[in-house]
């Protein structure tokens, strides 16, 4: 269950620093624009710019290279995989060829170039997402989603899932260590069987807990309305200044020829 520990990276967003203090709607606006420009870019400069800028910003709030490296590992591997797929399927100029298990393989220059562009887009895009998740709590994202008139039901389910995720992770880890002490993971079949009963137990616990959560909510005045009652503060002058600076930045980048 090691991977679950990574879920608890919300604690970075809970800290108070200059990036977490920025209004959530401003952050979402910047990240959103960044992600769109990232997938629209035709050369590697802009994705690399996003990657480096986000990295520097995260460094300023003391996020370690190791933490970032762990998050970036899987996307990077995926990027390499895509580079190979593109190298094999796109373009004409063969740079490397051979057979593997009787299968003809030929890497083409143009395909590898497209693959490299996609790789940098992965790096830039993922780093932008990490910039958001390391500096914004899910509660704030939910509040911003409501401000953007996203369906209330979706926001409520998201809040519930996130609220109870940590609780269920803890319970699962306790159950797993009990199973382990009773030799529940010594063979492959025993492992699968243990996971099966663990999965079953998780369903039972979640449903029992849902019933008691609902009773508790009703006793606290819940009548099927909003779960999230906190509202975002109105935007202030500094937030508008940040919105405006985005426009100035885009014009500047456009002048430098980043987009066409």
């Amino acid at each position, binding site marked *: *269950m090691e*991977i*679950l520990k*990574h879920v608890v990276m919300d604690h970075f967003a809970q800290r108070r620093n200059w990036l977490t203090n920025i209004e959530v709607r401003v952050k979402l606006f910047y990240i959103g624009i960044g*992600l769109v420009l990232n*997938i629209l870019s035709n050369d590697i400069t802009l*994705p690399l710019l996003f990657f480096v800028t986000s990295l520097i910003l995260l460094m300023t709030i003391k996020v370690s290279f190791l933490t970032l490296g762990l*998050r970036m590992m*899987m*996307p990077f*591997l*995926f990027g*390499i*995989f*895509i580079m190979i*797929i*593109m190298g094999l*399927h*796109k373009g004409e100029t063969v740079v490397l*060829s*051979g*057979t593997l298990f009787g299968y003809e393989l030929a890497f083409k220059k143009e395909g590898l170039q497209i693959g490299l562009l*996609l790789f940098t*887009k*992965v*790096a*830039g*895009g*993922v780093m*932008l*997402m990490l910039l958001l*998740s390391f500096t914004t709590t899910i509660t704030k994202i939910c509040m911003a989603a409501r401000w953007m008139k996203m*369906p209330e*039901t*979706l926001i409520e*389910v*998201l809040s*519930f*899932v*996130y609220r*109870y*995720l940590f609780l*269920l992770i803890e319970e*699962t880890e306790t159950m797993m260590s009990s199973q382990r002490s009773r030799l529940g993971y010594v063979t*492959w079949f025993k*492992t699968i069987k243990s996971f*099966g*009963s*663990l*999965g*079953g*137990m*998780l*369903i*039972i616990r979640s*449903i029992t807990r*849902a*019933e008691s959560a*609902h009773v508790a909510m009703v006793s606290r005045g819940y009548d099927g309305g909003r*779960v999230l009652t906190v509202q975002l503060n109105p935007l202030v002058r500094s937030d508008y200044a940040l919105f405006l600076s985005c426009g100035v930045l885009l014009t500047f980048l456009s002048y430098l020829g980043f987009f066409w």
Partner: protein
Amino acid sequence: MKKILLGISIVIALLLLPHVAYAMHITEGILPPKWVIFWFVLVIPFVVIGTFRLKKKKKVVPGFLPLVGLVGAAVFVFSCFPIPVIGLNGMATAHPAGTGMSAVLLGPFVSVVIAGIALFIQALFLAHGGLTTLGVNIFSMGVLGSFSGYFAFRLAQRMGLKLFWCGFIAGVVSDLCTYMGTSIGLGLLVFEGDESFSVAMMHSAKAMLEIFVVFMATSQGPLCIAEGIVVGFALSYVYKVRPSILYNLRVIKEQ
């Protein structure tokens, strides 16, 4: 030259193996804008119908929303189980998709919503998947995974199979379809507009097949079977301990 290619392939395979299960989520930045729009347009109706069903059920059964949230969280945790991949001698673990299970418990449309939320959390907090690739990931894991798992379960029930085997088939089929969806999403990347449609489709189909074979040949083939067994055992366990849960969720009919 052959040795170089073989070497590259082995290194990549070794790099990919320990975490390959998360390859089911297409990562941020991979899709060009036209495919981003295409996949979002494709999945929006499913998400809208799922949300409406949730809203409607919430009015009739007030405790339904906490139930969906908690079952969603449970399925999220379930999808993080590190299942050892048989044949690799414990070298690698893979993670189930979990959508088969949620579709059986909550129905396919609600399961699409749950998958969408799980993918959103994973994209932001685990850097698995992405925001611009949310559409294609919801398609493969949410739509294909949920609907195939649900209908496989119902078909197995109609054939009179025991609950374990119904769960097994749902788990296997939903996992297979999820990977098929990811392969389609990635294979379409090599689709080129300047080629004739049939040639471009041939290229894409070849790429899809190759990607699917790479997924299946590494750890996902055995994982499908493992996920099926785990889902089967999990449903049997619930039936043994608290059958009323399965009756209330209309997974099985009360005898």
